[in-house]
């Protein structure tokens, strides 16, 4: 995991009008907060942040934000997007400490082609991402799952995932299904789904 350095400016005025002026000047409004820490409203360079989020390690990364002479180790905690242009409108950065666990959401990615799919089965990813609590040093970009050995009728559960050592799974049970490979005839198709609703 790399640490990305970002230089920020403190935002003096708040409110809709001043925030839109920040956006017009090519900056992005953001806020830094943490435990026993007063929140600081900041502005960061939009392009720099956009590149690091979309082309770099994604949102699961530690950023070092330099503000005047202080520096904060943070993770992007909450991102706000414009519904149509899909630009990032605002970012919440949470201060992380080495000895405190932090909440992170990992996307779950598959590698390989499963045996079941080769036989004509259908692969269904039930859980696209997983929320965990872990130490900042264990943060990675994503969880990669090898599905090569999954046959028809087999499934991969949360407890089978290769999670970092300090990770505690949140919100889902350890027996929750992540990936299921079923025989082609068992899979509800797009046409069958509404028909099933009507039958009820």
């Amino acid at each position: 995991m790399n640490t990305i350095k970002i230089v920020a400016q403190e935002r003096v005025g708040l409110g809709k009008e001043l925030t839109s002026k920040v956006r017009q000047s090519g900056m992005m409004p953001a806020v830094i907060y943490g435990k026993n820490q007063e929140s600081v409203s900041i502005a960061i360079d939009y392009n720099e942040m956009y590149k690091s989020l979309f082309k770099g390690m994604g949102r699961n990364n530690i950023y070092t934000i330099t503000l005047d002479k202080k520096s904060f180790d943070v993770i992007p905690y909450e991102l706000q997007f414009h519904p149509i242009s899909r630009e990032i409108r605002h970012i919440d950065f949470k201060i992380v400490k080495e000895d405190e666990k932090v909440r992170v959401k990992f996307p779950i990615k598959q590698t390989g082609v499963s045996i079941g799919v080769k036989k004509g089965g259908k692969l269904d990813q039930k859980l696209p991402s997983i929320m965990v609590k872990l130490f900042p040093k264990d943060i990675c970009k994503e969880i990669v799952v090898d599905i090569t050995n999954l046959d028809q009728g087999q499934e991969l559960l949360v407890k089978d995932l290769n999670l970092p050592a300090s990770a505690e799974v949140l919100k889902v049970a350890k027996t929750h299904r992540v990936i299921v490979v079923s025989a082609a005839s068992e899979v509800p198709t797009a046409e069958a789904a509404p028909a099933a609703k009507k039958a009820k």
Partner: protein
Amino acid sequence: MLMPKKTKYRKQMRGRRKGTAYRGSKISFGEFGLQALDNDWITGRQIEAARRAMTRHIKRDGRIWIRVFPDKPVTKIPAETRMGKGKGSPEYFVSVVRKGTILFEIADVPVELAKEAMRLAAHKLPIKTKFIEKMEIEI
């Protein structure tokens, strides 16, 4: 065709449709979505026609989610009727769609197939739409 099983009141006021949708503006279930770019009412029939167009194009493969539901009754006064004598009777149901709303989602199909299916579906709708893909960062 989508419509409520029962309603608390038979008739509703028309309401307003201005503004941008912030709720229901992210892809939540599938990989690709069809996003509304105008504000309008979409009838249950239009939703069903769009769903059929999509389903037939992807040849019943993949999965489809309908993210809007027509829960608003629209009344109509019968033809050749003198004005007055109260509000007409409910004729059909609509969904109030604001720009930004995700109308449909598709998963488990290649991007080209999803794009074409959404294009065919968009022709059944009274509004401008946009094909969007899920952003990994949005998860």
